[in-house]
């Protein structure tokens, strides 16, 4: 007769097999594997193409690239431009952030909304708008200047190094703004009061307490703005190329013009990649320094600095800065979209809707591009959110051995400029076994890779905010892992994941720097068409497409805010 002991032993022997089968496991491992392949393929291709040719290992590509004066000039230009952009962004972004978080500046919410608007405005669109505003001949600001002063010459010429720096800076400062604003919001007035009570005056306090506390954020803001302008393609192509100014990204692009020199593009990409990696590593180090952890602590009390009489002038100044990145460009886009001739005043004689009709109903290229853009946006956002969610869940709950390395892979595209990624993907997917070039799927892979970090970070912070004990609590009273995911995790993560979807979607529809190398006649997207139409001088149609792009972007943001019920895109109030 079996005793309780023997029954128990029998169960013990049967269970391991049963237990070893966790239905979620193959899904998790598959996703992790997919991510790693996604990241390693293009990078591997770039390194291979830059070091190997038919003859085997060679450094000839690097020698060819780095002995050419023109190429070296492009690198030098990029360094100069990016440094200035970084510097100006820190000044504008830092001041704005301080004004909004620490002073009694009026209309703060609206100003934040405007900063956000410049954040989501594609820089290539801004650059294009500024060619209409400050082109040396027909630019409206120059027309105005001539009309007012009677002068013959132009006041501004946007097709210069300074013009390029200016445009890139007004679209890069929001990155710095959000970083500094975060720090300012966490920095309690107590820290400054403590210095005050020990006898420091306001200036001394600012110099010895406030600035040092904000310094890591300022430096890392500089790095982020620097990196941003390092990897931009659209603005330098639109503003720099007409003046013969090459940057690294435009130079890589020219390697793809006939006859294509993939090997040189690859060799030219490697230093850009290394520079980006180094800068990101430096930024991590600066932000990670222990001494500054107090800033990350509890909010504490914050007192607002009274601007007094300067309140209104300062507000007007802020408005002026934002008019450079938002009001003026948006206005000129709208005006040109509705005009027969964009450079003359908009009256009834000049008014037309032809540009809209042409863009949406007549020109087959734009119709196809709009369709492709939406299709890619929706598919990439959906697949990207799914993968980012699974990866974030694995890393956050430590479900697989070595899960920490997945974080590294998911964030890797941060150090890969879009155009470099495109070089890698081009090499991989123009040859068997998988030929994606010529279809929109190569763009899909590019976007999926490029947007992975933003989707992953959003999903990760979502899971971080869901206490693991909430899941444990359902497991222990009878729910298995999948049921627990469905009943507890999914409803709690919903709004965060919708936000991730929106972030990816917006990122996709404005992407230019990778698309420009990967599109073909059948796989054009809106950003590429805008770039193409510029060559054809179709100003009105470009403006229509630009406005459509902006409207869709804002609609998605508003929808996301509505669904989530809070301002996902703004920093904390």
């Amino acid at each position, binding site marked *: 007769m079996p005793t*309780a*002991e023997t029954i*128990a032993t029998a*169960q*013990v022997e049967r*269970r*391991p097999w049963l*237990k070893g089968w966790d239905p979620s496991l193959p899904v998790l491992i598959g996703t992790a594997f997919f991510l790693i392949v996604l990241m390693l393929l293009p990078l591997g291709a770039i390194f291979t193409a830059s070091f190997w040719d038919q003859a085997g290992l060679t450094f000839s590509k690097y020698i060819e690239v780095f002995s050419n004066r023109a190429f070296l000039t492009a690198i030098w230009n990029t360094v100069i431009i990016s440094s200035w952009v970084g510097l100006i962004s820190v000044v504008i972004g830092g001041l704005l952030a301080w004004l909004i978080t620490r002073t009694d500046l009026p209309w703060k919410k609206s100003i934040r909304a405007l900063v956000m608007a410049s954040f989501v405005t594609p820089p290539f669109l801004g650059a294009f708008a500024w060619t209409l505003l400050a082109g040396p001949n027909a630019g409206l600001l120059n027309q105005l200047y001539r009309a007012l002063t009677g002068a013959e010459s132009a006041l501004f010429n946007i097709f210069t190094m300074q013009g390029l720096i200016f445009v890139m800076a007004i679209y890069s400062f929001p990155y710095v703004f959000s970083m500094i604003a975060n720090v300012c919001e966490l920095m309690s007035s107590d820290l400054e009061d403590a210095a005050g009570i020990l006898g420091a005056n306001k200036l001394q306090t600012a110099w010895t307490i406030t600035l040092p506390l904000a310094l890591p954020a300022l430096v890392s803001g500089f790095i982020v703005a620097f990196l941003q302008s390092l990897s931009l393609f659209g603005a330098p192509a639109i503003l720099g190329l007409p003046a013969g100014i090459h940057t690294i990204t435009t130079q890589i692009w020219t390697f793809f013009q006939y006859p294509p020199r993939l090997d040189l593009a690859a060799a030219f990409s490697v230093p850009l990649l290394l520079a980006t990696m180094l800068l990101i590593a430096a930024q991590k180090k600066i932000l990670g320094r222990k001494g500054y952890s107090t800033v990350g602590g509890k909010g504490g009390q914050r007192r607002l600095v009274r601007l007094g009489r300067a309140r209104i002038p300062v507000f007007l100044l802020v408005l002026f800065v934002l008019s450079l990145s938002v009001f003026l460009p948006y206005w000129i886009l709208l005006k040109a979209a509705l005009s027969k001739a964009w450079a003359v005043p908009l009256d009834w004689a000049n008014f037309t809707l032809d540009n809209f009709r042409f863009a949406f109903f007549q020109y087959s290229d734009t119709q196809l591009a709009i369709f492709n853009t939406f299709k890619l946006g929706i598919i990439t956002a959906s697949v990207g959110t799914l993968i980012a969610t699974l990866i974030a869940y694995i890393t956050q709950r430590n479900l697989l051995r070595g899960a920490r390395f997945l974080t590294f892979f998911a964030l890797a595209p941060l150090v890969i400029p879009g155009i470099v990624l495109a070089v890698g993907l081009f090499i991989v997917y123009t040859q068997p076994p998988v030929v994606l070039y010529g279809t929109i799927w190569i763009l899909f892979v590019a976007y999926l890779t490029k947007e992975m970090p933003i989707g992953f970070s959003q999903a990760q912070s979502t899971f971080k905010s869901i*206490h693991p*004990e*909430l899941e*444990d*609590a*359902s*497991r*222990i*009273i*009878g*729910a*298995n*892992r999948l049921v627990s995911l469905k*009943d*507890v995790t999914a*409803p*709690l993560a919903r709004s965060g994941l919708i936000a991730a979807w929106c972030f990816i979607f917006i990122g996709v529809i404005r992407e230019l720097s990778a698309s420009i190398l990967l599109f073909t006649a059948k796989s054009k997207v809106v950003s590429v068409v805008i770039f193409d139409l510029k060559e054809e001088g179709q100003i009105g149609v470009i403006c229509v497409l630009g406005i459509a792009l902006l409207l869709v972007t804002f609609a998605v943001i508003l929808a996301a805010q509505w669904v989530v019920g809070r301002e996902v895109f703004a920093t904390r109030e």
Partner: protein
Amino acid sequence: MASVSLHRLTKKFTGMAAVEDLQLEIGDGDFVSLLGPSGCGKTTTLRLIAGFPQPDAGEIRVGHEVVSSVSLMVPPERRAMSMIFQSYAVWPHMTVAQNVAYGLKFKKLSRQESDQKVTKLLQLVRLDALKDRYPAELSGGQQQRVALARALVVEPQILLMDEPLSNLDANLREEMRFEIRRLHEEFAITTVYVTHDQAEAMATSDRIAVLNKGRMIQVGRPAEIFDHPKTRFVAEFVGKANILAGHLDAGSSLALADGLKIQVSGDADAPTHGEAAVCLRPHNVVLTHQESEAQGLKDKGFNLFPGVVRRHIYFGDTIDYSVELSFQRMLRVIAPPSQRYDNGQQVYAAAHPDHCVLVKEA
């Protein structure tokens, strides 16, 4: 058959042992506390019992059945256990009633039965009026009772509690201690209770297991732990303690620093000679300033320590004295408020050998 036994249990996190070679028997219907400072491995032990992490060595049995070992794991949902979490883990997207009813989904009950059970439990924890509220609309204490009801409604064989009271304010915490003990007496569910608060462990438990650095130090009834601590760690962690070190002769006489000899007591496994220390609880020390009274205590076998009052704090129900002994050691004494001495006053501190308990250093 809801006894739990932990056999040589070990769990490592990134190479560091969080729980090491842990041995513990918990009888059916027992209420056992795992007591220790933060990082001692008590929560890890609890989560091991629940089946969340897999042990690196050893095994856990429920009744006769192995539920955790290196080679097999019964998943948490099949262990017939409930757990109350430190964060309460009340689901914010479900109402109070939905939270409580959740576990019954997996029990194949009729709707009616399930509703009845939920209603009964909500009444028991006095939340029936709030059953349609969302957790965000509840106070901390109310959320805690939701967690309690949710854990009890599934009629678990074993109830696990992870510092359930640590997020409550002091008054509520004291009230809930008695509430938890009352519920235990009503349902007699085998319970493992994790806490770092010795008073909580004393108030609720049948037995207390003291843990330090992942190891079990002592298991026993609350009075045993308090009156007969086996190590200096237990003595100091559970209640206040004076630790007096000296040299032990055979025959339970301890020579202190200045040659003063005191009589001590100890368990069978206490040290018998060599360097040793005793634990003397402050409230077991009697103070007197009268020679005659001191002599009388000495005649009764008390150890006498001449000293000077250096500091005293009046607490209302007690007075906390610091008495400097002749060998410049401070002795803490808790005396009734009727015994008043001034700073600088010569006194005798007296302690019975039964209260001078030999403890091991580690």
